[in-house]
């Protein structure tokens, strides 16, 4: 059984501080849905509102089309996996997993049987009698999932459960989580500040900032077609070039930017907001920027002269840092095909990028420098 989760005009306020600002979204039954945002953006508060630990100040939370107002966390068809897992250290592994069955008065034999089934699901068969402290980080993770699944929740809520793991294990657990979700077929709502996690696992991602949902879409749309300056700057690497709109026509904007006149796609949702003369941010991804060998434009809508100042070699990619016009730093990434890039550091090159791969957005808040642990 999986249930949809509907947030209808949800506000959460703590005194004068607004943690969640008018959130409206419907998460479909069986969906893997992520809330992605920097720490303090209100995503954890939102998760606590869904699980019932926090009552919304205003608005309605519906789970399976049922209004959850006044229904406590122990009565909701949800299960929450905590950031620090919150396994019970004084109980054995199987007792942890079967705790919710104990609550429901299932007898010991029945609890043990169900715990063993779940241990099999998480590939920990035969480890039920161990103490929690005897497990590795990844195993604890899986026990926490099994414990939550034992309630047979319709919605599983996950609060950055992978953040305590090291990088390799984290990547492995992404695949694992996704596989478990597909096997059990229930709704997963996942909270993370790590865009890699959100993009790889989710059916849809909601990017959140300052309590506001910035954009809700599938991973590719979030990455390729950001609709706000925050989304464009928070998700993935992006070059931000400030400017003023010169003219708008047929879904494209011509922007007089600090590196020259650029032609950029204008998302449908922002067409009303960006008229000629408005301040705009133009975003172009490093991997969308090509280094041109000929002097001509080669069919690129936008060309810029820049000075190659640094290179970061990452194996599969070469990341170039260039000084563009107007003191702008431009980052360009090229795939390492083993041939080099034909230009040395210190030389001047022409950069080209297509209008479809360039996006103009209204000037707005952008993401702060990302934590170093984000992938």
């Amino acid at each position, binding site marked *: 059984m999986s249930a949809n989760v509907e947030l209808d005009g949800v506000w959460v306020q703590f005194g004068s501080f607004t943690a969640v600002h008018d959130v409206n979204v419907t998460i479909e039954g069986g969906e893997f849905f992520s809330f992605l945002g920097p720490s303090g953006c209100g995503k954890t508060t939102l998760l606590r509102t869904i*699980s*019932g*630990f926090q009552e919304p100040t205003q608005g309605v939370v519906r789970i399976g089309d049922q209004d959850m107002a006044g229904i*406590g*966390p*122990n*009565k909701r068809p*949800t*299960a*929450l996996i*905590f*950031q*620090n897992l*919150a*396994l*019970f250290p*004084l*109980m054995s592994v199987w007792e942890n997993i079967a*705790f*919710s069955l*104990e*609550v*429901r008065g299932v007898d010991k034999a029945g609890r043990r049987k169900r715990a063993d089934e779940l241990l099999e699901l998480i590939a920990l068969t035969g480890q039920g009698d161990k103490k929690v402290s005897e497990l590795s980080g990844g195993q604890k993770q899986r026990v926490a999932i099994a*414990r*939550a699944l*034992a*309630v047979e929740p319709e919605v599983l809520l996950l609060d950055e459960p992978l953040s305590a793991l090291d990088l390799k294990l984290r990547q492995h657990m992404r695949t694992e989580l996704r596989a478990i979700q597909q096997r059990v077929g229930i709704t997963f709502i996942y909270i993370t500040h790590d865009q890699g996690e959100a993009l790889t696992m989710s059916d849809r991602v909601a990017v959140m900032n300052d309590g506001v949902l910035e954009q809700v879409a599938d991973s590719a749309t979030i990455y390729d077609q950001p609709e706000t300056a925050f989304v464009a700057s928070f998700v993935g690497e992006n070059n931000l070039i400030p400017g003023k709109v010169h003219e708008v026509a047929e879904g494209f904007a011509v922007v007089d930017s600090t590196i020259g006149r650029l032609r950029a796609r204008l998302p449908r949702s922002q067409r009303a907001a960006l008229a000629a003369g408005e301040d705009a941010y133009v975003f172009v991804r490093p991997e969308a920027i090509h280094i041109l060998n000929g002097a001509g434009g080669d069919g690129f809508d936008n060309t810029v002269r820049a000075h190659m100042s640094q290179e970061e070699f990452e194996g599969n990619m070469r990341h170039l840092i260039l000084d563009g016009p107007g003191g702008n730093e431009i980052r360009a990434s090229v795939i390492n095909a083993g041939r080099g890039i034909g230009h040395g550091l210190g030389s001047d090159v022409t950069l080209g990028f297509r209008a479809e791969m360039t996006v103009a957005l209204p000037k707005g808040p952008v993401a702060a420098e990302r934590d170093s642990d984000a992938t």
Partner: protein
Amino acid sequence: MNPVTGLRRFVDRNGLAISAYLLVAVTLWMLAMIILPQLFMLDFSFRYNLPPAKIGGPEDVWTISNYAFLVFGSSGNPDAYNWIDLSVFFRTILAAVFVTVFDVALCYPIAFYLAQVAKGGFGRLMVLCLIIPFWVNEILRAFAFRILFGATGVINTVGMSLGLLDQPIDFVGADIALYAGLGYAYILLMIFPIYNAIESLDHNQIEAARDLGAPWWRIHYRVVIPHAKPGIASGCTMVFMLSAGALAAPQILGGPSSLWFTQIIYQWFNTGGNWPRGSAYAMILLIACIAFVMLMMRVFKVGLGEIGR
């Protein structure tokens, strides 16, 4: 690690002066203040009560007659056993158990509230309200309870004037005043160990249990109490030992018919002038209390090391 390298490391870590001070102070404290006096008491308890002139003389020999007295009484005793003293002894132990259980029931919710629920100012205010009354000395507090519970005390007067009571209740005679006084005397020793234990419990564990469907009582029974067990044990041990060994509160608040075992000990030492018998009685109380505490720790599966935490 053998003791010599252990000692060397201890000296290396703390420096010679501090190490010497710590070692001498602790050793002196243990020996001079705790072990030696108790050994003297133990020695006393195995001797006859002789006039000073005969001490060290041929009559000054070891005996267990002082211990036997508690069980069998004097040789002129018509009963087989010394029921008067024995019943006081067992009643004291039982009453101390009752005070301890009463204190756990009273203090656990307060400690839980302070450690997990109260945030900031109100919690601190509550702790102050708990501590400040203990600035008043024990005797004064005991007499204050007498004023509260006495036949013409506050409770009876108010109850009668409101028409709730037809005649005054004899709180002192029914030992209610005594239990209330003892219970109140040691609440801090119960609250703080439990508070410390519960405070170290990750609040997410409580929320996790709740999220998994547990009602409040099961959260306490399965998550909070197991975690707080060492603290509860530590509080219980102190409250039990101190109530069993209390003297002032039973003296002041005890009913005319009820005697505390410590009062008998006091009588042997003081009015009875029989120190050896008093020592023997005190030793029996000490050993019985320790044995009882050890037994309870075994029953509730608490290690001695856990209490020290």
